[in-house]
């Protein structure tokens, strides 16, 4: 087990170097010299040179690359061009509203999807299965933008059941602000989640061990919950955990529509003001999160399936 984790940890190094390299190429090589944009048209050559010095753009490329790698560990991303604030501070501030929205929504969506897919797998081929399948495929075909726009207009603006936009800090206070975006988040996740979970569960249902379990007289429910679900867990864990990094950004559109001052909002503001360091920081942060979580999934595998250890 320990050996397996160490091996996985070592494998993270080349991946992290690779990710840093892509981000370095994009933001340091392709994006060009930002000083002219930042200082405006009337900047003197000396001012531009000073700013370049300040931003670390006159360092050798190799040093610039190692700065990117280093920031993946230290989370020291420098300062925003637009707000002049420290980026790590901005991210810490933005994390709270984002997590208030996405964590409960994500947990509820995952559990709900799992329950629905177990039910439709139980009634596979019957009316309810067909109905859910049609709903899912129709559901994923509608643009996320259309859902958000319609729900915000209808439930918040027309009926006034929820706050239209904004955010309050503190536990019970944020609920009216995140309730509607959270419901939309859940609805948006149900379609793809149920489709995936159902396929995975049905893949297992036709295996020989299920026939054996049936032959020894176990009830369908026990087979489904004890045998099938356990075996379907590996793809389900992968699918669920791998979604988490995009979670901080997954609510990007929702935060934008509902003016929630989270990480999605920071990213979009940065996008509109061409604030490269912030986008770069978000790219590094979400990738590091992804890499760590893929390590976590690998560890979880060993609990879900003892055979993994042998590999």
């Amino acid at each position, binding site marked *: 087990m320990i050996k397996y984790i160490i091996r996985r940890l070592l494998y993270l190094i*080349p*991946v992290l170097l*690779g*990710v840093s*390299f*892509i*981000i370095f190429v*994009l*933001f340091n090589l*392709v*994006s060009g010299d930002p000083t002219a944009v930042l200082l405006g048209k009337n900047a003197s050559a000396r001012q531009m040179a000073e700013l370049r010095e300040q931003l670390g753009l006159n360092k050798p490329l190799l040093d610039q690359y190692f700065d990117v790698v280093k920031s993946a560990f230290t989370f020291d991303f420098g300062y925003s061009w637009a707000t002049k604030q420290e980026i790590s501070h901005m991210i810490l501030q933005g994390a709270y509203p984002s997590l208030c929205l996405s964590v409960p929504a994500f947990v509820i969506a995952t559990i709900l999807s799992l329950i629905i897919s177990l039910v439709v797998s139980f009634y596979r081929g019957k009316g309810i299965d067909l109905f859910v399948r049609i709903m899912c*495929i*129709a559901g*994923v*075909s*509608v*643009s*996320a*933008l*259309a859902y958000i*726009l*319609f729900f915000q*207009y209808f439930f918040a*603006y027309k009926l006034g059941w929820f706050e239209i936009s904004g955010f309050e800090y503190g536990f019970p206070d944020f609920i009216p602000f995140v309730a509607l975006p959270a419901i939309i988040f859940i609805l948006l996740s149900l379609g793809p989640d149920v489709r995936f979970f159902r396929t995975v569960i049905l893949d297992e249902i*036709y295996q020989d061990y299920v026939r054996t379990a049936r032959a020894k007289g176990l009830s369908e429910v026990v087979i489904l919950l004890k045998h099938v679900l356990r075996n379907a867990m590996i793809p389900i864990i992968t699918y669920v955990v791998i979604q988490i*990094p*995009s979670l901080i*950004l*997954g609510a*990007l*559109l929702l935060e934008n*529509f509902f003016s929630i001052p989270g990480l999605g909002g920071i*990213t*979009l503001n940065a*996008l*509109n003001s*061409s604030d*490269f360091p912030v*986008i*770069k920081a*978000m*790219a590094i942060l*979400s*990738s590091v999160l*992804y*890499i760590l979580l*893929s390590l976590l999934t690998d560890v979880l595998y060993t609990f879900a399936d003892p055979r993994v250890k042998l590999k």
Partner: protein
Amino acid sequence: MKENSLWKDAFRRLTMDKWALGSLIIVLIYSSVALLAAMGIIAGDWAKEVGASNMAPNGDHWLGTDIFGRDVLSKVLRGTQIAMSVGLVTSLIAIPIGVVLGALAGYFGGWVDDLITWLYTTFSSIPNIMLLISITMILGKGIFAVYIALGATSWVTLCRLIRGEVMKHKEREYVQAAGAIGGGHFRKLFLHILPNVTHIVIINTSLQFQFAIKSEVILSYLGLGVQGEPSWGTMIDDAKLELSRGVWWQLAGATTAMFLVVLAFNLLGDALRDSLDPKLKGK
């Protein structure tokens, strides 16, 4: 048995399924609309003011007009061209990269496999939306950046699938036989193995198309997509302000247009999998 019987058989099964047939027809209609719009035969005058501002749908303008008095239906048709072109160009970038890298990794194994696996793990480690945003922002807003961004992110899935499938095939008897009669690596890989994994490319392309269309709409909504031309995404962005004034037709037009084609590609992808994947035969 006749040659090509797998494909004929698959096509016959596909056309027997009326949902799949319907989807195929929808895709063909969208492709023709896109082609005609690209040639300027239809919706060429989308930018012309044809009536009053924000007219509700009526006999002359089936989807009404937008704030500048432009025909919404023409904008939807023009948006179809953008959406389909994004799907097409993305596939044209992703398929060669994904197939070649996947095939090389699966066939040769060893350090080639390690290198290519590292490459796609690295690409997939940056969350998709973040990579899309970064690339489009750095290359400058516009349709070209959207092509590159979606192409650069979408070869990964295909590469992984092809790699796995080629790995299974390279040990099979028919490949050994090809080697025994003197076929080299190139011959075995490209003439013998690849034709047997083509179904993965076809299924994946159908699903890739709908992903590209959905992504284009979101990127355009964020202002990163096509500039100065109507896209379904920018139409939905307009609708954000219009909806509270009761102007719903721009949203309805863009959403419905997108819904139909994405639904068609989803259904087609599922149907293709059912008819082409030999493992699912008879299930």
